[in-house]
């Protein structure tokens, strides 16, 4: 199964003009814990999905209070600068949504 079929929310957004932040929200703690234990949603797998090295994935963390996983990525081009493609950073979530998580 892909992450988009399991999670309730998969989104990307600017966290300031220099970072993109990604949120994955699950419907309940059971799904959250299953995903955390599953080992298919990790710093390494999201790095591979975005074709970056794992050390470029910032603050990858599981947050039980929101049944959420979160990480950030430095923007290839700062928001709104020449060559940027997505000023709000809100359409960068699809490789995460399509990630195979079992």
């Amino acid at each position, binding site marked *: 199964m892909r992450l988009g079929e399991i999670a309730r*929310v998969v989104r990307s*957004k*600017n*966290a*300031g*003009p*220099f*970072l993109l*932040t990604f*949120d994955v*929200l699950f419907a309940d703690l059971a799904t959250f814990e299953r995903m955390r234990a599953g080992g298919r949603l990790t710093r390494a797998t999201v790095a591979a*999905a*975005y*074709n*970056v090295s794992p050390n470029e994935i*910032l*603050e990858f*963390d599981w*947050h039980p*209070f*929101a*049944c*959420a996983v*979160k990480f*950030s990525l*430095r923007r*290839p*081009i*700062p*928001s*709104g*600068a*020449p*060559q*940027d*493609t*997505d*000023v*709000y950073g809100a*359409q*960068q979530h*699809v*490789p995460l949504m399509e990630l195979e998580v079992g």
Partner: protein
Amino acid sequence: MKDQAPPGEFRILSHGMLGYGFPAASLARAVEAGIDLIAVDAGSTDPGPYYLGSGAPFGARAMVLRDLQMLVEAQEATGAPIVIGSAGGAGGNPQVDWLLEVLREVLRRLGVRKRVAVVRSEMDRSLLHAALDAGHIRTFETGAALTHADIDAACRIVAQIGPEPIIAALAERPDIVLCGRAWDVANVAALPVALGFPRGLAFHLGKILECGGQAALPVEGSDLLMGRLAADGFVVESPHARKICTVESIAAHTLYEKTNPVNLPGPGGTVDLTRARFEQIDPARVRVEGSAYHPAPVYTVKLEGARLAGHRHIAIGGIRDPRMIGQIDRIEADMRDRLAQNLEGRIAPGTWLLTIRRYGLDGVMGALEPVKTPAHELGLLIDAVADTPEIAETVCAMARSLLLHWGYAGRIATAGNVAFPFSPADIPAGPVYAFNVYHLLELADPVAPFPFEMLEVA
């Protein structure tokens, strides 16, 4: 105040983006319930560097006027002060002046007089040069240290002020505080902090309220959001008759637009949600307690600056021929070589930058796009940014004509390669800016650099 708050409870109505609108019924219900503060966020870095760089306001004037007029009417009904942060989008002086002018029109229409405290947050360049020399400017999320050249290159630099300068203004009991760039939390938290409510709770409530109704369900358009703050916790609710706040919607919003949802750094310290507890007290309301605040050893404000990056000229076209789509990378590379040859001796390299976005291939994600298979048609956005509008126009026009007639391998459609929807195909798109200052400034006094000016506005 007509509608006295019950002892121990402080009611805050928040509008997350001035000019985005909200249902009149939501405001009416909030007024009926009683309000002690109307907190309004009017800006963000989200729409990009253009607004800070140019000084142009973000948002349609008619909509900003509409929202502001309704909120001033709510003030007339309740007596609640209004605190507006990040005027005009970026919070620079031209945007503060612009919003003040809109406010004057609102007050003229309503025939009322208000005491307005204006807190500007545009920074004096000489102060920043001195701070840089003194080692008081820290590297932040750009990953690069600030230079004197960056300070000089910026069209405008603002500081994102904390609650302290707003608290100083509120001490004079203005009806309205209108701020330059401000931490969105400060609009909500300044007054309750001044009244003695704990910073951890006030700041966390500010974080939840800053985007207005986005933390209530169903999310359908922009709306208002209410917070009831007490000494030991706060309750979040929607003033909309059919919207609810759930633990999930509030917790989800806590993640939004920040890298770490548990430790939220701001001017002067960090909001710590490690021990925050969220409780559904009824089907529509969430109570939160346990949010803490840790002052930082040194007070800092975030600096934001934008420089002029050039002038833009664009052309939009589409390609339908699979023979061309299949070799678009090669065609673009060859075209760029020819373009450079054509411009040689006329336009210096380094004075222009050509970006060709290929929608249907990697136009949205650029370098981050993992899918390499193009769609059956490609949208092309030819984007030239150059030192002058004339160079941008030349580069755009040349790239457009080269692509239109490029004789790629295997071509049988020899009349033209690109469908342009417009005549003229090329469009001047104005100046382009880039954030070039995004650093932290250490301040010995969080108030002194941002004095308020009290105006009688009628």
